[in-house]
Structure formats: structure tokens, C-alpha cells
């Protein structure tokens, strides 16, 4: 908003570019707000657990973040119900909340560690990594 008026005075070409930039910027900001997967790395090493966890050093857990606001597009991996709920939310925002941005696909990690008897355990933990997020 600050930059746009100043640039419009320069030339019409710049204004056209500016509009394009604005659209792109708006889309960029909108995409940033929309439901998406974000990076979250859990470091066993930083926790100081390397004396008993043999592998891995840590893992990418990821998390889901963003808004599930109207209109839900394909990128948001929305369920049919979520789309209906978004419409109802538009009409009755106080009584019906927006759908939630949540993990829709999760996967496991395997952790190799020592117990107190120096036995080695390889354990699979399900649902620890977010593979995909969506509006549900």
C-alpha cells in the first residue's frame, strides 16, 4: 500500500507491473495464510539424548498451519464436508466455525535406542510425521 501510489506516478507500464505485483503479492500472502504443511524438526541431539538414542539424530515432524477460509481451493485438500462448513460459516460465522487445518496423512518414525540394561530397542512410532495437511 505504501509503494503503489508512488510507482503509479512514474509510468503506465510500471503501473501495470505494479498491478501484477500486487496480484502476485496478494496471492502470495493468501497462499501463506492458507492451510499448509510447515517445517518442524525435532532434534534428539539438541535434547541431549544422543547418549541413549542411537538413531536418528532427529526427525522432520512438520505441522499444519493456516486458515481454511472461503473459497477452499484444491490446494487445501478439503473434504466435501469442509467446503459445506465453510459456506455455512460465511452465513453464520458466530455459530459455525471454519473447518480446521489438520494433518490428513501421517507416517511413522523408527527410533533405535538403548534401555538401562544396554539392550537395544528398535521401535516404530506411528503417526509422528505429517505427510499432508488439509481442511477438515
Amino acid at each position: 500500500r505504501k509503494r503503489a501510489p508512488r510507482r503509479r506516478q512514474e509510468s503506465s507500464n510500471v503501473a501495470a507491473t505494479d498491478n501484477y505485483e500486487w496480484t502476485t503479492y496478494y496471492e502470495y500472502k493468501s497462499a501463506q495464510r492458507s492451510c499448509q504443511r510447515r517445517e518442524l524438526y525435532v532434534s534428539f541431539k539438541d535434547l541431549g539424548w544422543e547418549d541413549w538414542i542411537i538413531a536418528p539424530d532427529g526427525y522432520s515432524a512438520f505441522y499444519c498451519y493456516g486458515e481454511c477460509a472461503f473459497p477452499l481451493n484444491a490446494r487445501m485438500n478439503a473434504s466435501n464436508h469442509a467446503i459445506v462448513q465453510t459456506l455455512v460459516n460465511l452465513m453464520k460465522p458466530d455459530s459455525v466455525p471454519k473447518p480446521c487445518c489438520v494433518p490428513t496423512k501421517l507416517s511413522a518414525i523408527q527410533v533405535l535406542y538403548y534401555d538401562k540394561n544396554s539392550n537395544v530397542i528398535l521401535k516404530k512410532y506411528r503417526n509422528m510425521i505429517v505427510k499432508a495437511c488439509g481442511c477438515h
Partner: protein
Amino acid sequence: GFYSDNGVDQTIMYRSMPKQERNEMQQEILSLLGLHHRPNPASHAANLTSYSAPRYMIDLYETLTGDEEDVNLETVKRRYLPQPRERGELAQDYTFLTSSYFVQDADMIMSFVNQVKHEYPLRHDRDRIFRFDMSEVPLGETVLGAELRIYKNSSLDGHIENNITVNVYQLVPGIDPEDRQLVLADSYTVSHDHAGWLTFNVTQATQDWTSDAFANYGFYIQAICGHKSLEMHEASLVTRYGPEGKLPFMVAFFAAAAQSQSHVR
């Protein structure tokens, strides 16, 4: 601390955690991992990776995590299932282990090291008896399979030229509390010059001991050549003492109880 991308492809710490909060978060993650407290392995645990059991487990971990999306079962079988012997070759009592097939189904794979130190007065028995502490196995875990692995060197004893049969017995209580009875768990016949890991199916014993830890009296190993019973060193079996990478150990495959996957906190 908490780290984040600063927008120019750099990771920076934006918040450092106070000690109290750090402890609470550690406790949260430990709880998620199904542990009540942080395990405190022996101080030399980091140096144990050259030992047979940790080495085997690291190898297994690397195989399983090599292709995160879809572990190739054939690779696992090729690496961990005993290779089929040729026709007519020593397989009288030996049944192929199926534990390798459990690798994908297992939620927990646990290795155990031999705990027999000096609890048996006779040195003779100490070499023949193996005991594995299973008290750390969480309640409710289902045993899918278990195997005992003993390394056999090629026999250099000129007197032994025949095949050697190695019997693994589960020790069970007898009528008298002091008595022990032997129940055959598995048996394997090999050529005297065979060198490599002998893998015995001990699933039944593991099931018994995980359900009743007090019934765990260990295994009794017997090596026979013809009608003669051999000492472990005569049969070239590595027992309590030997190279780190050839010490005997046990591996058990468990499936988690459904309710332990998550719990309300």
C-alpha cells in the same frame, strides 16, 4: 530452543527455553515415546556399537529406513533370513525361522544381551547357560517371533570331523523348586568346519518369559558330536567370552497393544 527460518534460508533461534520448560517438554516427548523416564544406559553404551547385538540392530535399522516410503521386503529377507542350504545338506532338525517376515509387522524389535555372569557356581554351567533379562518389555506386547543367535567359528580341533548338533533347551521349573527341566526349543546341525551365525527359534520361550518374568531361568545349550557331548569351545561356539562382534544375543519381534498407541493426557 526453538529455531525458525529467518526468510533468507537461515535457521535462527528465536526463543531459548528455560530449564523448567525444557524438562517439561522432554517429559512430554519421553511420554510420547512410551517411556516413564529417560533411560540411563551404561556410561560406555556409546562404545557398544562394535558389539554384535547393537551392530545387528543398527544394520536392521539402516535396512528398514533405507527407503522410508516402502521397505523392500525382499532386501530384508535376503539379509536376515538364513540362506537355503543345498539339497542333502544338514537340515535334519532345523526349521527356517520366520522372524524376518515379522520385521515389517513388528512395532518393536528388541535385542537382549546375555546376563549370565557369575550367578552359576560351576564355570561349566556358566558357558552353557544363557539368560536374557526381559523385564523391560512393556506389558501387553505380543511376541511375533524371537531368535537366539550364537556364532560358531570353524572348528580347528582335528578330533572333530563329524557334524555338530547344537540343541537349545528352555529351562523350566521342575517338581522341586530347586529342580530345572529341559524343554527343547530348537536344534541345528552343522558341519564342524561351518563358520557363521546359528539362528535358533525361541519364540515359545520368549512368550513364556514376557508373560511371567519369574519363569525365566534361561537357556541351556548342548553341543553333540556323534554320541559325545562337547564343551562349547570344542564345538567352536562363542559364548560369554569372545570377540565383541561375535557374542551371542537374542532378538525378539513384538506387536504393540492397540491401546498403547495413544492415550488421553
